[in-house]
């Protein structure tokens, strides 16, 4: 099938924005998940400090994804959000609670434990529903006449739940390796100890999920059979996991995060090989769902101005707050 240049451009924008979102917000969501594993106030404060300058900018990328999806691929926006009606509600509520907890936990001694719970739970719920959505997509989303035609709880089937837990652990791995990069002393050591366990758990879950995928979705197997070159991505993912472990062993603070990011990139590319050119596998392709050219060309000019700005802003914030965390931005 032929895809117009504009359609390909916006598909690329969506893909890149999702990838940036998953890696960046994944790390701060992961720190939020790990937040629940300690009761030490000092460690908790350090964890918050490690993500405080970044998290809201990271969430901007989720808004970029949603915005461009609605404008450029309205049918995907419609099917995806109605298929994941309750997960989306939980996602939004989780993000709101997380954001508010960020602001309020330091200001109120009395309600701190409640905001802390909100922060942890919000992070975990957001991570879980994102993974469950991916799982449900792999399983297949029933679409009739361009609209979702399944039930409200399809995302709570065993396979999506497995993927939800898997992504939460994956985010926790990103979070732990981010803490390795940003923190010092006791917290850094603890994060170092967590990384191999989380990486191991993630690999095990992913192996189960991959096996299950080939079992439940024939279409995935046939798609893969036609694109065997695509296996290079999961293989590179395995190497990335090895890189994580080597980084931990050699105590190279930057390695675990970089290698986890590479791992996520490879997982993303693997999914792309399995799904392309479908946006809702295997019901709607990018061209099926794209808005008319008159919409895309109108949108194009804003996009090429704004995306570099958001990108530059993201880079600037990460550059300004580079290195180990300092007191000044706690």
């Amino acid at each position: 099938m032929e895809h117009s240049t504009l359609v390909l451009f916006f598909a690329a924008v969506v893909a890149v924005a999702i990838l940036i979102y998953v890696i960046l917000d994944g790390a701060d969501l992961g720190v939020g998940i790990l937040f629940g594993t300690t009761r030490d106030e000092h460690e908790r404060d350090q964890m918050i400090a490690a993500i405080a300058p970044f998290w809201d900018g990271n969430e901007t990328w989720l808004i970029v994804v949603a915005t461009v999806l609605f404008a450029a691929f309205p049918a995907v926006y419609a099917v995806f959000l109605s298929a994941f009606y309750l997960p989306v509600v939980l996602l939004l509520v989780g993000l709101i609670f997380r954001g508010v907890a960020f602001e309020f936990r330091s200001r109120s001694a009395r309600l701190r434990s409640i905001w802390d719970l909100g922060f942890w739970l919000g992070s975990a719920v957001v991570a879980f529903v994102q993974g469950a959505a991916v799982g449900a997509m792999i399983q297949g989303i029933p679409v009739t006449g361009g609209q979702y035609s399944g039930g409200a709880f399809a995302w709570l089937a065993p396979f999506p739940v497995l993927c939800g837990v898997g992504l939460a652990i994956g985010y926790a791995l990103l979070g732990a390796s981010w803490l390795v990069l940003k923190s010092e002393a006791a917290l850094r050591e603890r994060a170092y100890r967590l990384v191999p366990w989380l990486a191991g758990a993630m690999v095990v879950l992913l192996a189960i999920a991959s096996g299950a995928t080939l079992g439940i979705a024939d279409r995935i197997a046939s798609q893969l059979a036609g694109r065997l070159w695509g296996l290079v991505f999961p293989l590179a993912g395995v190497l990335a996991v090895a890189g994580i472990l080597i980084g931990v062993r050699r105590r190279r603070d930057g390695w675990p995060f970089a290698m986890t990011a590479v791992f996520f990139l490879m997982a993303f590319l693997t999914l792309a090989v399995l799904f392309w050119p479908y946006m809702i596998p295997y019901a709607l392709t990018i061209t099926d769902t794209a808005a008319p050219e008159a919409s895309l060309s109108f949108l194009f000019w804003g996009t090429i101005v704004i995306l570099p700005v958001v990108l530059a802003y993201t880079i600037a914030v990460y550059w300004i707050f580079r290195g180990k965390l300092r007191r000044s931005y706690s």
Partner: protein
Amino acid sequence: MGLDLDPIILSRIQFAFVVTFHIIFPSYTIGLAAWLATLEGMALATGNPVYRRVFDFWLRVFAVSFGMGVVSGIVMAFQFGTNWSAMAEKMGPIQGPLLAYESFTAFLLEASFLGVMLLGRARVPPLLYLFACCMVALGTMASSFWIICNNSWMQVPLGHAIVDGKVIPADWWTITTGPVVRWRWPHMLLGAFLTTAMTVIATGAWYMLRGTHRDEARVMLNWGLALAAILVPVQIGVGHRTGDVVHTHQPVKFAAIEARWTTQQPASEVIIGIPDETAGRNLFALEVPRLGSFIASGTWNSREIGLDSVPEQDRPPVLVPFFGFRIMVGMGLVMLVVSWLGLALRWRGTLETARWFLWSAFLSFPTGFVAVIAGWYTAEVGRQPWIVYGLLRTRDGVTPSLATETAMMSLAIYVTVYLIVFGFGAHYIYRLLRDGPTQSGPGPRVTAGSRPMAFAGSAASAAGGDVKAGE
């Protein structure tokens, strides 16, 4: 009239609920941004430190309001996909890019001048700081422009074509600058300015009543009253033209607002009454003959269509548009009286001692918010039974897979979370307002990034305020 709780009505209630919370914040933020730019300009022009103190104070309110507006706005955009997916799919080619440009505008703003405004006071030259304030004010207005474009297109679709049964944009120029958005956008902006002006007046009056922060209160009263006194008449004019747009393009909605059940010539005006939707008449109506024709068409003898001119399935509900409109106009009249009386008292030099007036001004704090919400209800309920007027019925726009139980669940979750989160937010703004402008201390320290709420808190503590949100 029985209320069947189906996914359509639940989705409408949910949208109305989140929009009611949401609209409070951006309409406040737009006005506050302009007010802050004005204060900063006055501080630079006169060198009078009181302007700086008033600025620093309102900047904190602005920061919280901005943060709340962003959070609640995101929820709204997602509603289009979750609850109105049939509309999102069919109308996305037009609504999607308009809302995308709104997000883009907000991104630009947050990535640039907002940070300077919140954190850059000590780091940039004064003129650049003023420039940043002006850009933030313009940016919030630009944001609202895209929202009004989108909504105006839903009210009166123009500039589109239907090809193979699909709605596609044919003329973006008409979509973005058409005859409807041209009046509705200024109407909304003026509503936002007046909302802010009334809260500024009320806050000043509050301090005068309590005998605190007198210098700052004087600035607030003088500027707020003068602004409202000028803008209310302008708004009445623009509002009238907005009504003309409705009269021309949505005559049935106009009939609903007027509770005009049957076509009349000449048409009378129902000043107030209780529309009885089942019987199709007005109870206890106070009617003025011929005035309806005059308001609608500017002549005393025009023929004005009634609700009976269209089949029953094309008629909007009457109760909400009828009362929504009258509440909005009523609030406008309260603003007019308060602002003109206030200026008259100031002229006679008794403004600061007339406690009865200060009390009325204080109590008029919510008039702008009430007017904005009532106006939106009038516009949105009056559009029914269409979600996109004449193109798509509301019941055809709802997500087909949405079940009643699911919709109830989400509604319950949103109500709970909003009451908690925005309850805290409103409480926080209340405390900021109550404590008032404090001696400006050292500039706010850099907290985590450019988070508006964090800024408000750190500025408050840096300035010695005792704001403890979350208590």
